[in-house]
């Protein structure tokens, strides 16, 4: 085995893991606050990808600037979805919640299909083409940028959650819904904002992968399952855990791709998933929500 290949896989996996982490952060936030497993998360990410795709293709704007547009748009979409569709079923049985988010996914994906056809689309950004050579490893520029932006966004989110009034209200709601409501927190509004932030994370991740990935209406499912794996690994509802989980899954995937042919690397990810679920369903750090 070539040592350089391992270093290369390590770098690629780490950078990709950052993106997985960003998707999972949104998922885990939504779960933490509302105990809802959001199957529409991949579709929300797909919307973010299309936003960046069209802004770049039609207006030629720098894809990283369109991050602002996708974060804003997805926040509004997420907030609206929560207010009108998820709010009525927060107390419903789990299978209803799951089917509802699946229904949302179905609608979003097919709206994209009708509007933009099932074609696979990609963008070509000239100044991102050239890789950066670091020692013997080639660092793919858009992946590096995605990683850096992920860290920035996660740090900003962390700051909001830990230091601001809004963040404390979100935390309070996730820990004790009724108590939060008793001390004057508008729980309904907080739920909407939390879902909006979660959706915005998915949208941001979509924008960030667009320079090196294709988009199609069904692309979300590629990322959705990995995001579940990452979120469970870090402990559902655990913010920092999702970040570490993302890096672990990214690494596991790219390193196993070295040894396994075809798409068998996915099997490693899922087996890891089942293993974690069985042995430590509360996540590696044991702080995840218990059931």
């Amino acid at each position, binding site marked *: 085995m070539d040592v350089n290949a391992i270093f290369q896989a390590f770098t690629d996996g780490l950078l990709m893991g950052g993106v997985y982490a960003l998707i999972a952060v949104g998922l885990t936030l939504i*779960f933490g606050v509302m*105990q809802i497993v959001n199957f529409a998360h991949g579709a929300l990410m797909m919307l973010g990808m299309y936003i960046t795709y069209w802004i770049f293709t039609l207006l030629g704007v720098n894809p990283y600037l369109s991050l602002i547009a996708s974060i804003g748009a997805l926040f509004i979409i997420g907030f609206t979805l929560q207010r009108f569709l998820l709010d009525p079923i927060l107390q419903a049985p789990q*299978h209803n919640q799951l089917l509802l988010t699946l229904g949302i996914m*179905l609608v979003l994906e097919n709206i994209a299909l009708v509007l933009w056809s099932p074609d696979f689309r990609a963008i070509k950004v000239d100044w991102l083409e050239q890789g950066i050579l670091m020692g013997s490893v080639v660092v793919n520029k858009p992946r590096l940028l995605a990683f850096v932006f992920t860290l920035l966004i996660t740090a900003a989110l962390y700051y909001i959650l830990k230091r601001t009034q809004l963040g404390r209200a979100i935390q309070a709601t996730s820990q004790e819904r009724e108590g939060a409501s008793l001390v004057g927190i508008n729980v309904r509004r907080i739920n909407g904002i939390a879902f909006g932030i979660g959706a915005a994370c998915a949208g941001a991740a979509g924008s960030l992968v667009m320079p090196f990935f294709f988009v199609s209406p069904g692309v979300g499912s590629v990322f959705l399952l990995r995001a579940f794996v990452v979120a469970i690994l870090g402990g559902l509802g655990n913010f920092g855990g999702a970040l570490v989980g993302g890096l672990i899954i990214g690494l596991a995937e790219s390193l196993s791709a070295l040894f396994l042919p075809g*798409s068998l690397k996915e099997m490693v990810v899922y087996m890891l998933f089942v293993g974690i*679920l069985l042995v430590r369903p509360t996540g590696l750090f044991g702080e995840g929500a218990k059931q």
Partner: protein
Amino acid sequence: MSETKVTTKTKKFGNFTSVALFFLLIALFLFPPLLDSYYLNLLIVIVYGIYLAQCWNIMSGLAGQFSFGHATFFGLGAYTSSLLFTKAGLTPWLGMLTGGAVAAVMGLFIGFLAFRYRLKGHYFALATLAFAEIFRVLALNWRFMGGAMGILIPLGDQPAYFQFKETIYFYYIILIMALFITFLVYRLGRSKLGLYLVAIRENEEAAEALGVNSFRYKLAAVSLSAFLTALGGTFYAQLYSYIDPELTFGSNVSVNILTPAIIGGVGTVWGPVVGSLVLTPISEFTRGALSSGISMIVYGLIIIAVIIYLPEGIVGFIQKIWRRRAILRQKANPAETVPGEIQKGGI
């Protein structure tokens, strides 16, 4: 429904229902040969949807172990019988039972792991999903299983090999399977095993405290459901003569299996029946009338609307109205007894 409280009125009603069911049964057997091929195929898809939703209902409705990965069992059934047929020439009738056995063993394995480590709710659902994905990736990459190209089942018309010249025979087969499983769920709901399962679903700790071995009964429900789902997989393979990893192990398969059951009413005998009767024609007709994207949007919106406005499913909603009317009748005429609560506790 408690048996002791049956009044003369409900008995008369019971008679009426059984007569109606009897005529419905006769119609189900005699009427379809008159249909043209479009409607016959629609009917097959409806009944097939009932069958699979009912399979899911045993494990997830009755026993409350929410599966999001029934594609595992479905695919194992389809692949086992098809591989045995194409590679060893074994008739799919036997392949069907073998596939059922393989799926049941897999169900025991998944169930054993999940229950042993006390997986519940979301975590259990995600674990079943992960298993289905593992099998999908395996089927995709293993050349023995046909890889991404899937398995093409050679055409034929030998009934001994589960192949027919006329589509109508497929209809009769799936009809008998669906009637059988609906009757099974009905009986199960009134049997000791079914009552144990409901007790476990409603409150596992309390059931355990009363001496119900929840681990054992949950495993029984999973393996029974897995076995029956696999038979559906073989039926699919024989009907369409083609399977591939996405069509059998894909997450869409799991979603299609559970949707009619949830829309109809989880844990009720008639939920899967009503769910498939309502959803399948809607999905087929909209697909015919609209472009595929728009029809799926409509389908998704219907699912969303039912979940929000009829959270107990269509059958659960009807049962609630019946019960409310019975209470009103009783208020007007106190001599009459209200039939017991149907939704809670029983099935």
